[in-house]
């Protein structure tokens, strides 16, 4: 019963790993992969000029804060939604961003943020906040936050649903006891709920972090990595190196460094999760 799963895993995970390693150590073109052996030259190149390392750093600085913000907002919203009676239609609405194809999330936000005709500029100009249209996606400062915004629009509902489910598993007797003893609601939340929620929250954070590290579609549509390199996240850079500049070997080397980086960034969260789970038994 496990045969097909093992075969599938070998095909989409094992084989690519070996193949990528071979590609990274050799010179390839789209037409002729593995044409000549070059050893570690491509890694030396990548580590030497620092551009890709900067991209990795940028990817981390994108993924971690946006996951944290989404977790905080999501937990807050879940707490709010908990007390709402007519939550049914709210719950259906909240699902929709989550289901939207990321490419189309990009299109929607591109229209909203467009300097000419976008709602964002339209409203801010109308209110007098802006004197001239601001090209959000063309600004070094605002382009990456704009990508985060679109990403948050899509994934906040996911975090809310998971937080709601986590909140539901809290045993209510301890809370009632604490409340009867006169503990304030804030105190109950911080000292009783939060520690009990910690494993779930860390799990949700890990999931979001992993997904944020993969971000490609929204960047591709919204900014194409620009302006300059300000929104060039690792997935986009690898795609560009491999399938735009056709430097297959370099892209493979970037891929390996990126995998290493993903492991490095997720490892502490995994360890923390294991630690919290052990502690709460």
């Amino acid at each position: 019963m496990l045969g097909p799963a093992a075969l599938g895993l070998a095909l989409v995970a094992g084989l690519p790993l070996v193949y990528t390693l071979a590609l990274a150590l050799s010179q390839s073109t789209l037409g002729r992969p593995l044409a000549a052996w070059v050893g570690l030259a491509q890694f030396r190149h990548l580590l030497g000029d620092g551009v890709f390392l900067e991209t990795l750093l940028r990817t981390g600085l994108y993924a971690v804060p946006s996951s944290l913000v989404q977790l905080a907002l999501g937990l807050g919203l879940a707490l709010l939604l908990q007390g709402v009676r007519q939550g049914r239609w709210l719950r259906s609405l909240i699902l929709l961003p989550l289901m939207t194809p990321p490419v189309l999330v990009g299109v929607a936000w591109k229209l909203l943020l467009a300097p000419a005709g976008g709602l964002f500029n339209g409203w801010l100009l109308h209110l007098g906040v802006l004197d001239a249209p601001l090209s959000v996606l063309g600004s070094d400062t605002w382009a990456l936050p704009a990508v985060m915004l679109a990403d948050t629009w899509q994934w906040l509902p996911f975090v809310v649903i998971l937080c709601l489910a986590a909140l539901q598993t809290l045993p209510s007797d301890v809370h009632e006891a604490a409340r009867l003893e006169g503990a304030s609601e804030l105190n109950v939340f911080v000292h009783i709920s939060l520690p009990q929620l910690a494993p779930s929250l860390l799990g949700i954070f890990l999931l979001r972090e992993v997904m944020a590290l993969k971000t490609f579609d929204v960047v591709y549509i919204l900014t194409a990595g620009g302006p300059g390199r300000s929104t060039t996240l690792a997935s986009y850079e690898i795609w560009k190196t491999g399938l735009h500049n056709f430097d297959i070997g370099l892209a493979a080397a970037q891929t390996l460094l990126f995998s290493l980086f993903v492991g490095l960034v997720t490892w502490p969260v995994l360890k923390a999760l294991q630690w919290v789970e052990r502690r709460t038994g």
Partner: protein
Amino acid sequence: MNVATLTRQNPTVTPAVTPAVPHPADAPPLSKRVRASPRWLLQRLALGLTLLFLVLPVAFLLATSFKSRDEVLSGYFFPLAPTWLNWRTLLSVAPLHLNLLNSLLVALLALFITLAIAVPAVYAVVKLRHGQRLAGWLLSSYLSPPVVALLPLFFVWRQAGLTNSTFGLALVDGLSNVPVAFWLLRGFFKQVPLALDEAAWLEGVGPWKTLWRVNLPLIWPGLTATAIICLILSYNEFLFASVLNSRPDLRTITVAISLFEGERVVNFGQMAAASLLGIAPVYALALWFQKHLIGGLGAAATLEHTRRQP
């Protein structure tokens, strides 16, 4: 006692798919006590703003799709002179109905591949207690970004004649959704008491038949949720679809719409209409099965932790 604990002890599995939000009956009557207090107002305001935030982008797409070429640049929300032009000319710009069909075909085929692999694997891991290590590998493979597999798969698939093929793309999507399906299904299978399986085995019923006759009927709602999520994941996929199936007649809808970008003059109104066409199938699916979906996502998220609680 909370709902999750009840679920565990109850041999029927239906409570797992009740909506993740507590029913009014089990929620504390907080809103009643504090209605119209500043806190209640603040709560409503926060919810209202969130709702606006969640609805605005798609609502603006809808409004934009009825704007003429000039009006698109106005920056107002509502079209002053609504026009059907963008919708009427939609299919003359690109064969979007064919792209839509490609997307649906790929998603369905991929779903079949995913379930055919994931369901037996989950059964073996959860019930027969085989292959724990494989489960670990499967889940950790999900950590790695898809772009990592892009180049190698492209070369191998081309060699095997699987590029520019509906089946080839479905194979990639189907295989890469296996970890997700595995993770979701594991929770549902765990809710079926092992005693039921053991009883069947004692009667001499093989594992395959036990899976089919005993487990699947009980986890039907969970299986539906998993299937919907896999369908949507494949339908939404862009990276592999754009690289593997670049031939115009095989393009999926996400790829087709992304190419609107490439043209010199982007007609926002038309792009909005095309995007809504692309969004419509997933929204229909999500709304139709919303109860399953929320329950399924919630159950998968919490089962691991509730299981450990005393």
